């Protein structure tokens, strides 16, 4: 998830592994952004046991917690409602689900509410910052359950990391891991990872932590559900997608200048688009003919020096839209896969869309119906915003 927080961005992602043999994950992660409050809320919940039952408890907990926090309800009362609502375990006589909530507000002011999950990590410059503003709350009706509320002031570059006990207890009881990976083990791994790659995205960091926890399990059999959620406050990464010739030829130069964008990355989608930019900026496109064998059912991608990736237009963008909608692009054609990967590594995707009708696409002998460029862009916007939580802007030319 990415959202604007003054001029910074909150990237929020999670990675999960399901306990081996189960059909559903017993942990749940969900998040919401409230743009008009410049607020991001995320919840990680771990349900008692595993499988469908745990999944239900975790989902109920995270859904309720998210709604209560969002509506600024008293947190103790919220937790009581959650515990009253969950079914009680017959053996342990407790209604069990843990949670960690990150509630980040304007300016980086963040409240973290935890109940029985491993304590979160606030990472700044490879240091797990000690928490100095912690409040503990105990419910009269559920005296066994303690809640910790921590106020955190986030600075640019800071990360908040939370995980379910599937991470800290990875390998528990196995040779070398008598007490499991533990929080310290995970923390050392995180520090090493961030030291090697200081700008690692929340998505990649969550994914490597979960994968490392998984790999500690004997024979890579996951003994408990694993979930890791990472919040990363940083300067936004922008991808600019330029596609289609401008409606008025007089604006060609202005349009081409948008392709010079040192603040982010650029993709030119469309032969005519690439030619306009190439002509105005006096630079050229190189297409590696060796890419043809990897280019699948799309024209091969090329590169323009000083600009970036260049692909064919409408067919490639239609494939990108389909890939984003299906969520599977591993075996996609090279041009589409490169664009999807660039999109995934960005927080903001800016589309600059030329609106001139391409006469060549009106050829009646074409074997397929080409979709309207603007429709494809709308499909891309819907997927990127709703499914991949990116910020999307569209500017027509």
């Amino acid at each position, binding site marked *: 998830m990415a959202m604007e927080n003054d001029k910074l961005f909150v990237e929020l992602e999670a990675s999960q592994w399901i306990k081996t043999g189960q059909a559903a994950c017993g942990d749940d992660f969900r998040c919401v952004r409230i743009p008009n409050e410049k607020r991001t809320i995320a919840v990680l919940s771990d349900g008692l046991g595993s499988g469908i039952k745990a999944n239900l408890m975790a989902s109920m907990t995270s859904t309720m917690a998210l709604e209560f926090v969002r509506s600024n309800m008293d947190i103790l009362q919220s937790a009581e409602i959650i515990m009253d609502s969950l079914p009680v375990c017959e053996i342990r006589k407790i209604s069990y689900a843990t949670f960690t909530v990150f509630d980040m507000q304007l300016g980086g002011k963040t409240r973290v509410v935890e109940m029985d999950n491993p304590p979160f990590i606030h990472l700044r410059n490879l240091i797990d910052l000690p928490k100095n503003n912690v409040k503990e709350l105990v419910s009269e009706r559920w005296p066994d359950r303690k809640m910790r509320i921590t106020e955190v002031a986030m600075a640019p570059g800071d990360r908040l990391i939370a995980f379910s006990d599937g991470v800290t207890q990875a390998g528990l009881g196995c040779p070398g891991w008598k007490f499991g990976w533990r929080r310290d083990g995970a923390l050392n791994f995180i520090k090493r990872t961030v030291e090697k790659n200081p700008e690692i995205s929340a998505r990649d960091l969550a994914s490597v932590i979960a994968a490392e926890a998984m790999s500690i399990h004997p024979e890579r059999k996951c003994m408990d559900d694993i979930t890791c959620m990472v919040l990363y406050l940083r300067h936004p990464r922008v991808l600019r997608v330029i596609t289609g010739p401008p409606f008025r030829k007089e604006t060609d130069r202005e349009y081409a200048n948008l392709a010079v964008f040192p603040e982010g990355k650029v993709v030119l989608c469309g*032969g005519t688009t690439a*030619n306009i930019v190439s002509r105005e900026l006096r630079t050229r496109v190189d*297409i590696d003919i060796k890419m*043809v064998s990897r280019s699948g059912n799309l*024209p091969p991608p090329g590169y323009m020096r000083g600009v970036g990736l260049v692909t*064919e237009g409408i067919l490639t963008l239609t494939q990108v839209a389909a890939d984003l909608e299906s969520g599977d692009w591993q075996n996609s054609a090279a041009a589409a896969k490169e664009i999807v990967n660039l999109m995934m590594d960005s927080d903001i995707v800016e589309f600059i869309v030329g609106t001139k009708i391409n006469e*060549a*696409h009106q050829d009646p002998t*074409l074997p397929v119906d080409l979709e309207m460029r603007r429709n494809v862009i709308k499909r891309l916007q819907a997927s990127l915003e709703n499914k991949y939580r990116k910020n999307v802007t569209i500017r027509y030319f």
Partner: protein
Amino acid sequence: MSEQGMIKVEVCCGTTCYLLGAQSLLALEKSMPAPWIGKVEIVAMPCLEVCTNDNYSHAPFVRINGEIVGDATVDLISKKVNDLLERHAQ
């Protein structure tokens, strides 16, 4: 021949050309006849922008040493290139 003495075949990879068969033309790079090797260069181009020009025939287009060839097929390109090679051999 180009400056380096190579025959340059530029294959248009615009949407229309690609849909009408440019992919099979690019495959020529891999299955180049032996006499062409070292003498013919096949490159992919973003769009030659000739499909909207009525002076030319129909997509897919290639440009062989600067000359636009429409309705391009592997056979047509082979013929044109072989003719050029023959002419240069004489």
